């Protein structure tokens, strides 16, 4: 036992691993705020995208077009460096949020995931057949009830795999926030590398943690798919 602990203490990879692990909470904080907010906004934007009001749907379509056509790094920099250089934002209350790299990261990640997520949900909403909506209407549902009881359950179930993909992309995207001096796992790995001059050990330690996070994410999405697709479960009899 003594031998193992001694070995681990001498192992650079293990020490890096512990150090990077301390940055896990910062990575998770980014996700905990941006994923739920992004999910709700995506749903709202997807409804707006398929609405008959041309102004709303065209505005959202161009928002999606711009965000999906530019790299996330540009968006993060635009919010962190770009907005900070505008005079009236620095004088407004927004500055209390935007001077923190953390809130810039959250804002950029949310804006990004909403664009991708709403496009995914739009596909789901449009895949709901007309007959299902008509049967809902014939039962006397109003619009909100129709969304809650008919459209969302059918649409969300269908898009779960592709939204799961988007969630994994988001976990990976948090690493970019490290470029705005925010110390999450990638930032810490970068710092370790500068300190020890051993790049491979530092980045592999961070890579293992990201892989683990994504593994958990995949399991979570699999569980959701299992839970919300009871008709597809293989019976245990």
């Amino acid at each position, binding site marked *: 036992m003594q031998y193992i602990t001694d070995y681990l203490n001498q192992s650079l990879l293990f020490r890096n691993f512990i150090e990077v692990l301390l940055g896990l909470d910062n990575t998770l904080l980014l996700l905990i705020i941006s994923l739920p907010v992004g999910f709700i906004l995506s749903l709202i934007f997807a409804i707006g995208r398929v609405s008959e009001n041309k102004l709303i749907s065209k505005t959202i379509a161009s928002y999606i077009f711009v965000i999906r056509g530019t790299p996330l790094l*540009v968006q993060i920099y635009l919010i962190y460096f770009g907005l900070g250089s*505008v005079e009236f934002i620095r004088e407004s209350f927004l500055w209390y949020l935007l001077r923190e790299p953390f809130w810039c990261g959250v804002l950029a990640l949310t804006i990004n995931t909403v664009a991708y997520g709403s496009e995914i949900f739009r596909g789901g909403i449009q895949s709901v057949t007309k007959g299902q909506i008509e049967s809902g209407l014939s039962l006397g549902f109003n619009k909100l009830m129709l969304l809650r009881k008919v459209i969302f359950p059918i649409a969300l179930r269908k898009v779960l795999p592709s939204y799961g993909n988007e969630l*994994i992309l988001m976990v990976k995207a948090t690493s970019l926030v490290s*470029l705005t001096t925010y110390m999450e796992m990638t930032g810490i790995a970068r710092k370790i590398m500068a300190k020890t001059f051993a790049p491979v050990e530092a980045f592999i330690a961070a*890579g293992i943690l990201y892989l683990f996070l994504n593994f958990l994410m995949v399991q979570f999405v699999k569980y959701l798919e299992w839970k919300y697709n009871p008709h597809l479960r293989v019976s245990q009899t």
Partner: protein
Amino acid sequence: MFKFEKLVFGDLGWGDEFLFATLMTITVSILSMGLGLCLAIITVWAKLISNKITRLIANFYTTVVRGVPELLVIYLIFFGGNSVIMSIAKLFGYNGYIELNALTIGTIAIAFISATYSSEVLRAAYLAVNKGQVEAAKALGLNKIQIFFRVMGPQILRHALPGIGNVWQITLKDTSLISVTGLVEIMRQTRIASNVEHSPLTFLVTAAFLYLFLTTFSGKFFKVLELNYSKGYN
């Protein structure tokens, strides 16, 4: 706020610098997409032949690279790549110092990432081609090379094109990350210019427009290609 006069061509503005940076982004994207496709073909081959070891290696590669942030892969290859190459060179008896330039390292890093996505696309396209086609070609007496280039290849290409278009967009956007290696592409040029001029908004908006321009037009190009390749089906 937005200073148009900083974007003129010549000594007074950054127009020509941004033009070269855009060309660099396009170069890196095309090179890494090409290299990535070559890697992807090898990966697909390794996954489809009935050899457990190659399949294990290929699956490990795609799972790991897709599960780790792109930035980490780039850092690992940029900072760790040189020492790996030097230790390989040592095996061949060369003890000097080797340093690959940023373009090579960046291209390799992006290709590594892009190949994982391409391999999934190509694998799905390969499996989508009807097996009867191969049997028909065999019945006609075509040899293996002829089957690949005249029967399977064109059909795989048709099935893969929409996916390849998506991978191209991802690759193009991922090239913004290799600005961390110091290669002067759009993103790096943006940082340099905004540090010199103290006007980040101007150059970041310019960068966003340049990327938007590139993705939109290459998207249109792929749409045309897709239409061309599915002529026989509509």
